[in-house]
């Protein structure tokens, strides 16, 4: 499996955790981005993720390679969902194992931040009032730098 991948099915976290087990590592850090029931004052009922997968996969591998080089970690992975998601589902998962906790925390933080900002992935929110909208592309473009509806 590649370090960065997409999944159209619920993310199998137990198997991902197991894939990062390493006897040389003393620390494991993971991050899960969850589907939350509100954003920007609206009640959210469901999400859709869409990706330009060819470029997002290439850019995702680059992000993980950068984290590995920058923080000296070997074991790092990220999985992002595509398609329709309900509340409480895991939209994105990042895991890093490393000899010591500091580099694992820092690499994990780096990967989720860069994935959110660089990969061609889009999120459409469906609201309780029946409306829907592409996050950062409609109604709230001015706040595009500071969205955090899931992660």
């Amino acid at each position: 499996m590649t370090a960065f991948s997409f999944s159209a099915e619920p993310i199998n976290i137990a198997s991902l955790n197991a894939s990062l087990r390493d006897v040389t590592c003393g620390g494991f850090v993971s991050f899960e981005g969850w589907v939350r029931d509100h954003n920007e004052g609206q009640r959210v009922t469901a999400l859709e993720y869409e990706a330009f997968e060819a470029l997002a996969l290439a850019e995702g591998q680059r992000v993980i390679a950068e984290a590995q080089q920058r923080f000296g970690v070997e074991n790092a992975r990220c999985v992002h969902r595509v398609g329709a998601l309900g509340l409480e589902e895991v939209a994105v998962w990042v895991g890093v194992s490393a000899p010591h906790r500091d580099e694992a925390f820092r690499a994990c933080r780096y990967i989720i931040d860069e994935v959110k900002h660089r990969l061609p992935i889009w999120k459409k929110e469906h609201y309780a009032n029946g409306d829907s909208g592409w996050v950062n592309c409609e109604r709230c473009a001015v706040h595009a730098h500071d969205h955090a509806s899931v992660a």
Partner: protein
Amino acid sequence: MTTPLLGLVLAGGRSTRMQRDKAAIEYRDGQTQLAAAVEALRPHVTKVFVSVREDQRTEPTRRHFDQIVDQVAASGPIAGIASAQAVAPNAAWWILACDLPFLDHATLANLAARRDPDRDATAYRSSHDGLPEPLCAVYEPRTRDALAAYIAAGRHCPRKFLLRANTLLLDPPNPRALDNANTTDDYWQAMSTLNPQLAVSQREIRVQYFAILREQAGRREEVITTQARTPRELYDELRGSHSFTLTADSLRVAINGDFADWSRPLSTNDAVVFIPPVAGG
């Protein structure tokens, strides 16, 4: 003892008339003008530096190169030349502008071969007005005090400096090689000369749409026959026909599967994706 010859590519300009950073423009092969100038000069000198202003040091086009930061209180290219001479006073400096899209190997090789270290400087004679071309020229170390005095007297024109100095003037092997491109009109003329595919009046481009653009276009992809020369022109055309709400400024663009510059020339059969503001995570 031979005098070392060092190279200095000037990239400290403000590109006001071009309305974008000239050093970052890619005319050929996806390479910035700055990188192309550094690579072209490298075989002829011991080491190449890039002249920058203090506030440009970490700028992405410039940060990977060895830099000489302007230290001299003067405006324009002469500040870069004097700063380099202050850093390495015993070296001869080959000064090269970064905004010469037609610069060719023959022009540099001829200057390297015919440079006369016993003169103050070696430069080309402009094919337009016969005056020295000061920004593709070798300044010998003996010009350092004179140049500092010239600046101290409030003068800033390196061309007039070379006119007053004992400059060897060469005829350029290619009269267009030192034409610089300063305006958006110059840019398009240079682009179409250097990229013959732009002369084709129509090209077929495959466009894929995602997210809000997919919904507004009402399709996932289409093949467009267009006169657009760049992705920016293509987006402006499609924005009209599909009533896209997003402006090009809020998008990025990918060509053939990788991020690309908005001014990259389009070729027929290119696959283009316009990337709306992303929201992963």
